[in-house]
């Protein structure tokens, strides 16, 4: 059943220009963007030099942070498009008329997202190992996998962004609005809400538990860890979640997004 649904999704979208382009861009940028790091000759302390971007164990963090943006943008948009495109073509309803149950249809989208997340995580792992092995002198297996908890975190991060994408697609349905909500919420809306709620009303570390923040903190900008160690004047709490906090927070949000999307799809007219 899982294979059947996955094959169906592949048949639907293999010739879709927008989705093909997004996949291509993701495959192109994932292994290359990190090399922009070569341009940063002067790195801030406590980093010794720009080589740390590429050597074990830090390569997992830097490539992960880059993947964070690329997954958010390219794969996230794919997860919105695989729903809203079908709404636009009305194949959304035709698939049901033809005989899929609503559960099967919903499941086919979730399975696609999981498959994309697995593929992206494999790619991430291969790239990190490749770059790390090339740049780290005298590496051992334990060096290579010292930071390998990054692998499941990368996977969870991918599922996180894409489940928000499915949520936007299934709940909003209208193509433009759904894409806009997906991009704007993550980039603008959430910081705005945080500012409005927390800097005015309650100032504590619940500010870190917003969905975009939880998911981002699975693969944060590595220098934030250092910055976070420096004592701060205005804040009496950390501005980064620990990995276990971010993991639990993300899982809760993923459950909420997928749950609401499912409920909305099952109950409404299509």
């Amino acid at each position, binding site marked *: 059943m899982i294979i*059947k649904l996955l*094959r*169906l999704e592949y*048949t*639907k979208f293999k*010739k*879709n*220009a927008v989705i093909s382009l997004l996949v291509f861009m993701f495959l192109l940028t994932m292994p290359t963007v990190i090399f922009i790091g070569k341009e940063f000759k002067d790195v801030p302390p406590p980093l010794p030099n720009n080589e740390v971007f590429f050597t074990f164990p830090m390569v997992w963090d830097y490539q992960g942070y880059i993947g964070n943006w690329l997954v958010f943008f390219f794969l996230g948009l794919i997860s919105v498009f695989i729903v809203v495109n079908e709404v636009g*073509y*009305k*194949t959304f*309803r*035709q*698939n*049901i*008329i*033809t*005989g*899929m*149950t*609503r559960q099967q249809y919903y499941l086919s989208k979730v399975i696609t997202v999981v498959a994309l997340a697995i593929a992206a995580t494999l790619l991430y792992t291969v790239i990190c190992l490749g770059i790390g092995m090339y740049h780290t002198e005298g590496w051992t297996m334990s060096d290579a996998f010292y930071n390998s908890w990054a692998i499941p975190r990368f996977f969870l991060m991918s599922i996180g962004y894409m489940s928000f994408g499915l949520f936007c697609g299934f709940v909003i349905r209208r193509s433009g609005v759904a894409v806009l909500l997906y991009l704007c919420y993550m980039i603008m809306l959430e910081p705005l809400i945080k500012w409005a709620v927390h800097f005015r009303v309650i100032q504590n570390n619940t500010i870190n538990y917003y969905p975009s923040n939880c998911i981002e903190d699975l693969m944060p900008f590595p220098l934030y860890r250092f910055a976070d160690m420096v004592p701060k004047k205005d804040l009496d709490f950390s501005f980064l979640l620990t990995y276990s906090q971010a993991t639990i927070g993300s899982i809760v949000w993923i459950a909420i997004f997928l749950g609401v999307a499912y409920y909305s799809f099952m*109950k*409404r*007219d*299509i």
Partner: protein
Amino acid sequence: MPVLQIDNLTKRYGKIKAVDNLNLTIDPGNVYGLLGPNGSGKTTTLGIILDILRQDEGSYQWFDGQHGDHARLHIGAILETPNFYPYLNAEENLEIVRQIKGVKKQDFNELLEIVNLAHRKKSAFRTYSLGMKQRLAIAATMIGDPKVLIFDEPTNGLDPQGIAEVRNILKRIADMGNTVIMASHILDEVEKICSHVAIIKNGKLLATGPVGAILNDDVTLELNSGDKIALTHALHEMSTVSAISDKEHWVECLLDEDQMSVEELNRSLFERGIILTRLVARKRRLEEEFLAITQNA
């Protein structure tokens, strides 16, 4: 065992009842026309029984419930517009339908021949004319040899040639002994293709039954004579005549042909001293029946 049983179905959009307490039973082999003006609730009804729309009240059951939630795998249906992936060609689009239906791999050539699309099977769906799109949709409904076919306004928006082609295909499908449910506001279409008809207006079922029963045996007569008033008077005295109405140039009435032939009526009037100057007998058409039924509602 009925193919479809609909009980007390109601669907509201705000204050408007799109479907109002609808009951309908469709038996195997019926070619059922769902007839009603635009906005009467035909598509809404079809949407509910295809699990696209959620009803507010009532229920329906396909095939006595034997296929459960998978009943639609045994139904081929088009609702409103032909819906396909615009960037895929005819074969690829039919392949998606095949995968969903879960039937074995097949060559679509024969199917595409029936709907006269074989020559364009490699063109992307978006390059098709409306008629071609509609024909592809009809081909898609036949994949997996479904027990029931549902068509919603199948000739809507087509040019005369397209209408003729689609009607021929539908007639052939109906003649193959399939159960067909067809929504239409075009009476002629229903009259030509269907064995049964259900007339719907404002979401309510006004009449249902075999086309022959709805289209009753009464003959409509157009009569005139030198003295129209005497003619009208004489007609009122005859028990076999009903629905007498004064048209400008003649008097129109219904004659129960089981009781009295047109010839007997003519003789009877002659015996009463009325010489007819006009006598036109015509079968009452579904169109008149339809107007009579929907206007009374």
